[in-house]
C-alpha cells in the first residue's frame, strides 16, 4: 500500500455564526495511488472537507496532516507543490491563453521575477499532453467548451506536479462524453502515475466505477466508508439521501436507481 499523503483525524469545523458543525468529526486517509470518491447530499460538508484538506480552512478540532506534517505548518506555496486542486467554481476575469493558464500551475515552483526554467516548461508540456489539450495551447480560455476548460484546469493542477489531486465536482455541467473523459483521465493519473486522488461528486454511480474507496457524507459526518461494494447499499443511500432507491450490481460494481414515487421494488432473483 502506498504512503499516506492526506489524513484527517477527528476533524471538526464550524463556520462563524452558524450553530452547527459543517464537518463534525471526520477521520479519513488517502494514500498514494488511491482514488477516493466523496459523495453525499447538498450541504453534507463535502466542499468544507476539501477546504480543510487543503488548509484554506483551519479545523476547529482534530488534525489535518499533509505528508506527515500538520497542514498549518506548510505555507501556501509548499502546499501548492504537494496538492493540486481543481475547484468547483472558477470565473476568470481575463481570457488568458490555455498555455498561460496551465503555466499558472507552476507559480509555486517559480521565482517571483525569474523566467520559466526548463523544468517548468517540461511540466507544462507534459500536463498539456496528459490532458490532451495540446491542440489548443494558444486558444483563449474564453473560447473553450465546458469539457475543454475542465481538462485545462486538470492540466493546470497537474503542472503543479502534485502528490495529491483534489477535484470538486469536476463533471458538473458536462455531457456524458466529457464526464467520462474527465473520470478516465483522473483515474489514469491516480492509478498509473501514483498520485493520491480525491473526487467530490454527485455522480454516485459514475464515481463508484472509478474509485478504490468511497466516503458517504451526511450532516458533516462520514455515514459510510469503504469500497463501492461496501458503501453503495440501499440502507445507506436511502438514509443519506432520504429517497427510496434500488441497488443492483453491474459488472461487479453496485449501481443505484432512484425510484419514482409509488414505484414498487422489483423482485430480485436472489431475494
Amino acid at each position, binding site marked *: 500500500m502506498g504512503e499516506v499523503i492526506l489524513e484527517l483525524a477527528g476533524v471538526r469545523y464550524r463556520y462563524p455564526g452558524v450553530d452547527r458543525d459543517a464537518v463534525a468529526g471526520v477521520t479519513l486517509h488517502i494514500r498514494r495511488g488511491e482514488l477516493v470518491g466523496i459523495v453525499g447530499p447538498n450541504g453534507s460538508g463535502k466542499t468544507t472537507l476539501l477546504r480543510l484538506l*487543503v488548509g*484554506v480552512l483551519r479545523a476547529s478540532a482534530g488534525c489535518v496532516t499533509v505528508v506527515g506534517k500538520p497542514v498549518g505548518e506548510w*505555507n*501556501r*506555496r509548499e*502546499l*501548492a*507543490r504537494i*496538492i*493540486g*486542486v481543481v*475547484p468547483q*467554481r*472558477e*470565473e*476568470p*476575469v*481575463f*481570457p*488568458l*491563453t490555455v498555455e*498561460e493558464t496551465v503555466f*499558472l*500551475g507552476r*507559480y*509555486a515552483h*517559480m521565482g*517571483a*521575477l525569474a523566467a520559466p526554467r526548463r523544468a517548468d516548461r517540461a511540466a507544462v508540456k507534459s500536463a498539456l499532453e496528459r490532458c490532451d489539450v495540446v491542440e489548443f495551447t494558444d486558444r483563449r480560455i474564453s473560447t473553450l467548451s465546458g469539457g475543454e476548460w475542465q481538462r485545462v484546469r486538470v492540466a*493546470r493542477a497537474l503542472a*503543479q506536479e502534485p502528490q495529491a489531486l483534489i477535484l470538486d465536482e469536476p463533471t458538473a455541467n458536462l455531457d456524458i462524453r466529457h464526464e467520462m473523459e474527465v473520470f478516465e483521465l483522473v483515474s489514469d493519473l491516480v492509478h498509473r502515475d501514483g498520485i493520491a486522488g480525491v473526487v467530490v461528486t454527485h455522480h454516485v454511480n459514475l464515481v463508484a466505477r472509478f474509485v478504490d474507496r468511497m466516503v458517504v457524507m451526511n450532516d458533516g459526518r462520514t455515514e459510510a466508508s469503504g469500497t463501492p461494494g461496501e458503501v453503495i447499499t440501499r440502507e445507506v443511500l436511502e438514509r443519506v439521501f432520504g429517497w427510496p432507491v434500488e441497488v443492483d450490481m453491474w459488472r461487479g460494481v453496485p449501481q443505484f436507481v432512484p425510484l419514482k414515487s409509488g414505484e414498487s421494488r422489483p423482485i430480485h432473483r436472489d431475494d
Partner: protein
Amino acid sequence: MRWLALAMLAVAAVVAGVALGPADIGWSESVRGLLGMGDETVVAIVRQLRAPRVLLAFLVGGCLAVTGATLQALVRNPLADPYLLGLSGGAGVGAVLAIALHVGGAWAVPTAAFVGALVAIGLVYRLALVVGAGVDPRVLLLAGVVVSAFGGAILGAIFSLSSAAELQNAMMWLLGGFDAASWRVLGIFSSYAALPVAYLYYTNRPLDLLSLGEEPAQFLGTDVHRLKLRLYVSASLLTAACVAVSGIIGFVGLVVPHAVRMVLGHTHRTLLPAAFLLGGTLLTAADVVARTAFAPRQLPVGVVTALVGVPVFALLLRRWAK
C-alpha cells in the same frame, strides 16, 4: 516589435511635450535649450518648466495605468480603476483637507492623500460587504462611485467654507494638472511611487492568479489575504502620490490597461510595464493638448482625459457586455 512601437511612442510624446507649449519655441530650439544652449529664457522654460512637467506627466500616467491594471485583477472587475473605485476621490479629500488646514510641508499633502485613499477603499469595501457575505465585484464598483460622490460632497463643503482665492487654486488643482511641476515635486513623487511600482511588478504572477479568483489563487500557492492587503496599500500609495502632485485624473487607469490587453495579452508580466509606458505616453500627450489647445489659457489635464476617456469607456462597456 510591439515594445519598440510603444517605446517610440513614449519618446515621441516626451519630445513633443518639451517642444510644444504656450511659448512658441520650436523643436530645434527646444532641444538646444534642453542641452543648455541658446537663449537663457528658452533654457529656463525648457529645463525648469517643461522638462520636469513632461516627466511628471509621464510618471503619473504610468503609475495611474499600473494602478488601474492592478485594481482590475484585485477586485476582479475589468472596469475598475483608481478613479471609479473611489481611491482618487478619497486621496483628493485627504489632500484638500491637508491644504485647507494648512498642514505644512511638501510631504504632508501626499501623506494625507494616502490616508484619504486608504479610508476610501476601506469604506468601499465595507459598503460592498453590506450586500452579502462575499464581495461582488460589480457592487464594489458601485460602492466606489458612491464613496466618490461622498468625497465630492466633502470637497464641496470644504470649498464653500474656505476663502475665494484658495478655492480657485484648489479647484483647478483638483481637476487635474501639472502646473505645479518642478524638479522638487518630481523628486517627492518618485520617492512615494518607486516602491509600490516595484512591488506591483514583483507580484505580477500572483496578480495573474488573483484574476482567477481568491480560492484558486490560494490553491495555486499565494497567501491571498496578505497579498490583497499589500496590493490595496500599494494602489492607495500610488493613487495618493498621483493625486497629491496632479489632482484627480480619471480614465487613464481604466482605458490604458484595456488597450494593452487587446494587443499584448493578459499576463501581468507584460501588461504592467506596457501599461506604464502607454499610460505615460497618453498622459504626456493629454498634457500637451491641455497646454496648447486654448493657449494661452490652459485646460486642466483631467478634463482632457475625461473628454477622451468617457467615450472610450462607453466602447469598453459595449465590448465587456458582449
